[in-house]
């Protein structure tokens, strides 16, 4: 995967993504994820996959369009 994307409809602001991948995900003042546009290098890939798997609403996903 190169980048991550969040489905804002599924997202409920649990915040697991920001905890597991703080290098790419920050939380806004309402607790919703701001996902960086920067690509994910190989050394970060397993952390990114863990963040995707940890999302309780399956809102976080690899960005298929890139």
């Amino acid at each position: 995967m190169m980048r991550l994307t969040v489905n804002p409809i599924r997202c409920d602001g649990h915040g697991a993504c920001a905890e597991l991948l703080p290098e790419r995900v920050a939380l806004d003042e309402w607790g919703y994820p701001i996902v960086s546009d920067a690509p994910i290098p190989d050394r970060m890939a397993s952390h990114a996959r863990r963040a995707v798997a940890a999302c309780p609403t399956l809102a976080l996903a690899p960005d298929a369009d890139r």
Partner: protein
Amino acid sequence: MTLATPRPTATAPTAPAPTTASPPPPPAPRLGHLVGVLPGGPGLDDHLRHYSTLPQLGPGELGRLAADAGLVGRGGAGFPTARKLAAVAGARRAGRTVVVGNGAESEPASGKDRTLLRVRPNLVLDGLQLAATEVSAGRVVLYVHRDPILVGGLRALVDQRVRLGVDAHRVEVVEAPPRFLAGEESALASRVSGGLALPRFTPPRVFQSGVDGAPTLVQNVETLAQLALLARFGSQWFRSAGLADEPGSMLTTVHSPDRRRVQEVALGTPLTSLLGDPLLPDGPIGAVLVGGFHGTWLSTADAVGLRLGNTDLRPRGASVGAGVIVALPAGVCGVVETARVVSYLAAESAGQCGPCVNGLPAIAGGMTELADLRPRPQARDDLLRWAGLVAGRGACHHPDGTVRLVRSALQVFAQEIEQHAAGRCTATDTSAFLQVPTGLPTRDEDWS
């Protein structure tokens, strides 16, 4: 309002000759007179007499005509119609596609679609037939704002056209709820699929998977009417009005200080002639809103000399959209008007995405604070921060459009905002100018 007179062409339209001799193309207005017509417009007989029967086009011909004409959608996004037709036809599998004519017109400041549906429904239905044949549709729908008289009239007209063999595809009329987002294409697809008119996350876009998962062509009703004329009179005729890069005519809704009017206008027409006012600095117009509630405010200085169309509007940060032009009277406070609109937009959030659900009410609160007198010193900064936080972070473009309106208001009404900070409002007329709907959604049923 008249169009540029088309150059007479000796060449026949590119469509095959219709089965009855066609009258010459209408000079102006093309879409027909929009005033003084009874609801339901001319009956089917009058329609056929005035416009002749709709030609039968071969496969791909509608797309070629639309491409040659340079027709773009008239629903606001301005997407090239030929490309959209090709995308849906290309996404077709096992013969299932859906065509939906979008007549929801959820933008409160726009009246062109309801007018067109009232006075030229046959042109819209003709356009649906053309599109449905082009993409081999299995289901054809006309999605309209909720109006029992209009809906009843349209259903009766569909019955008549099917009975007389005019329509090969029976058109279903589906009502849209009175929600700002009801006309958004994924909300439309959701509603026509039998659900609530709530936007969906994309991808997939509706042309890939829309109504009931089928590739769906969504076209504004005016685009369909333009296609109905294009099929009869050809692309050269179409291009005889407008600009080379923005050809043809479009319906506009113009709000001037004393009235609101739907007019058909050639692209490239100066805004001043639309507004009937020279846009002088201390004149009767204080500012111009282009594009409706998700549009852009322009100062009179910026608007003067601009022609209708993206060629002149985009460099000013605006877009022609669905042709809404509002001339704010000089005595009305633009900050107050914007706050009223933004409060409505916040209440009309679909409530599905955290940044929108939280951010839009915050932004509305911030605008209201600026509209009142002596706001907190941080009010404007808060507003800009929230605007930056919500743009691009919803499933649909509701936050983005709202932010566009707010940012342009902060720029164009900067002096007025300073006055408010000092405890003064320069308005001489405190009555509401823009019509903002009441009856805001409270339950799921309000979205069906």
